[in-house]
């Protein structure tokens, strides 16, 4: 563990306190109204805290347990679309049941968990690589289903008129809504980090790291390996599902554009750059990747003669270059521990 992991702050407690405060803040008549030019930075902030939720689950799965989940976006999308389908009121050309948002929240998370259970039951008794292949395929299948059943999901248009519980309670306009969302979702992400870090820093985490190192030996030392792997897959699925629900509730809509393979790529690269298995490092890695996005957008404003597409391409090039540099010179990631890296990976 690095020095970074030993800071004497209990993230679980702080996260819980901040969450309560941010909800109280929602109920209060107060709001923070940021200046207009900061909106696009803050928008990216919302995306960041949502992705952090997915990443925490993915890091538990891959970083600690060695489960290769190449389809976190599938669980993110199933959570989001389930919530949207249940809660949308008369969306255009799609199905919306108009239920209250807490139903969407609960069932959305459960649906992601259900998908995780299905994938886990089907693959976790097989060799490691099957999970990787199946999750990759499941992500494609989920994407295909959303496109195909357009009378239900709205196809490329998506679902509108989804409730926006956090912005609706804020008052004070667009900027204040973004700030409130960052506070609530960010404190939830901190809480999730705290809870998952307690898990990985305990004997439970020791079993997970043992499974990552040698499954069979762990089994012969009296641990129920399948159950651990199954539960880890479920926990990660639940977090990704929650992230999907929160993102749909923030946007007041579900759109296939929210759930592209970019999500999987962004969290995976963030995790690898930060250092898979380092609970804080991976979040740092995600911040670096999303910082690039912010930087290129800022530059884009300054240099109007360079097209947006060109900047997008430049960003992908830069991210690819960074990933190559990290893999070449620091394969364990910036904050990772080389001694804990598996020899074969």
């Amino acid at each position, binding site marked *: 563990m690095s020095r970074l992991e030993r800071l004497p702050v209990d993230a679980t407690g702080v996260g819980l306190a901040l969450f309560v405060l941010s909800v109280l803040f929602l109920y209060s008549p107060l709001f923070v109204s940021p200046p207009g030019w900061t909106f696009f930075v803050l928008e990216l902030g919302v995306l960041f805290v949502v992705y952090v939720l997915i990443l925490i689950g993915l890091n538990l799965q891959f970083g600690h347990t060695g489960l290769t989940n190449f389809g976190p976006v599938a669980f993110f999308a199933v959570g989001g679309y389930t919530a949207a389908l249940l809660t949308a009121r008369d969306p255009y050309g799609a199905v919306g049941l108009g239920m209250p948002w807490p139903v969407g929240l609960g069932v959305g998370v459960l649906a992601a968990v259900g998908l995780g259970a299905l994938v886990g039951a089907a693959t976790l008794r097989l060799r490691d690589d099957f999970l990787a292949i199946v999750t990759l395929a499941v992500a494609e299948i989920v994407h295909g289903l959303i496109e195909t059943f357009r009378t239900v999901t709205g196809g490329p248009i998506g679902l509108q008129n989804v409730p926006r519980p956090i912005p609706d309670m804020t008052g004070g306009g667009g900027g204040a809504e973004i700030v409130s969302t960052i506070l609530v979702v960010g404190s939830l992400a901190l809480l999730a980090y705290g809870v998952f870090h*307690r898990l990985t820093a305990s004997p439970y985490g020791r079993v997970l790291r043992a499974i990552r190192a040698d499954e069979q030996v762990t089994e012969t030392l009296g641990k129920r390996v399948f159950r651990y792997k199954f539960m880890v897959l479920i926990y990660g699925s639940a977090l990704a599902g929650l992230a999907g629900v929160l993102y749909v509730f923030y946007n007041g809509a579900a759109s296939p554009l929210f759930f592209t393979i970019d999500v999987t790529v962004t969290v995976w690269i963030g995790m690898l750059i930060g250092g898979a298995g380092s609970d804080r490092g991976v979040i740092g890695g995600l911040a670096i990747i999303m910082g690039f996005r912010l930087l290129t957008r800022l530059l884009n404003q300054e240099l109007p003669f360079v097209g947006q597409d060109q900047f997008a391409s430049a960003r992908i090039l830069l991210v690819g270059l960074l990933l190559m540099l990290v893999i070449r010179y620091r394969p364990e990631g910036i904050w990772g521990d080389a001694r804990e890296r598996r020899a074969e990976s």
Partner: protein
Amino acid sequence: MTLLDVDGLRRSFGRLVAVDGASFEVREGEIVGMIGPNGAGKTTLFDCVSGILRSDAGTVSFDGRDVTGAAPHELARRGLVRTFQQTRELTTMSVEENVLLPTPDHPGERAVHAVARTGAHRERERAARERATDLLETFDLGSMAEEYAGNLSGGQRKLLELARALMLDPKLLLLDEPFAGVNPTLTANIAASIESLNEDGLTLLIIEHELETLTGLVDRLVVLADGRVLATGPPDQVMEDERVIDAYLGG
């Protein structure tokens, strides 16, 4: 009393019959050696007994219960623990963590206790640490506790595996070639440890090619050839058996 009873065990890989109706027993308090030429099916037999491989036919009873087809973790919890021929320490974890891992019935290994950081969890962890420290001292690994297991020498890895297995307080320990690739001094040390563990009531079944050390250690030998038990009995008697000599000399 019979602790382990293997009856008519069979396992084949395609057309190759690795274990072909092997039957033998290990009584409580014994040290039994298992020998046989390469390819006799010794390791496959271990794998079937410890639940890593499913057997095609036959039964395994342990401690008075039929455990045929039981999962490895279940057998380990009941007190049937094995080591591997190629040492398989968890190289990406510290020596101490390696030994702490097997701690049985650890509340901290359940998510609720781990997240809530319950007193039961901390209490168990402290007791486990004490036991682990004792075991590491016994096997001269005390100074290596913080070291990553990947940095240990071959001999130290053998010792670590032994210490790790003992953390489960086994009734029966299956050792797969504990002296392979170990220098003579360390061989003598390991043999002494095995004897003292046996005096404390541990039953052992040992696969080994290093016959000199083995015959001095065991109460009884089981000779395996072509997946079947060829002979069994006290070492001096078995070593003079014509069939055993033939099997070893490639008769």
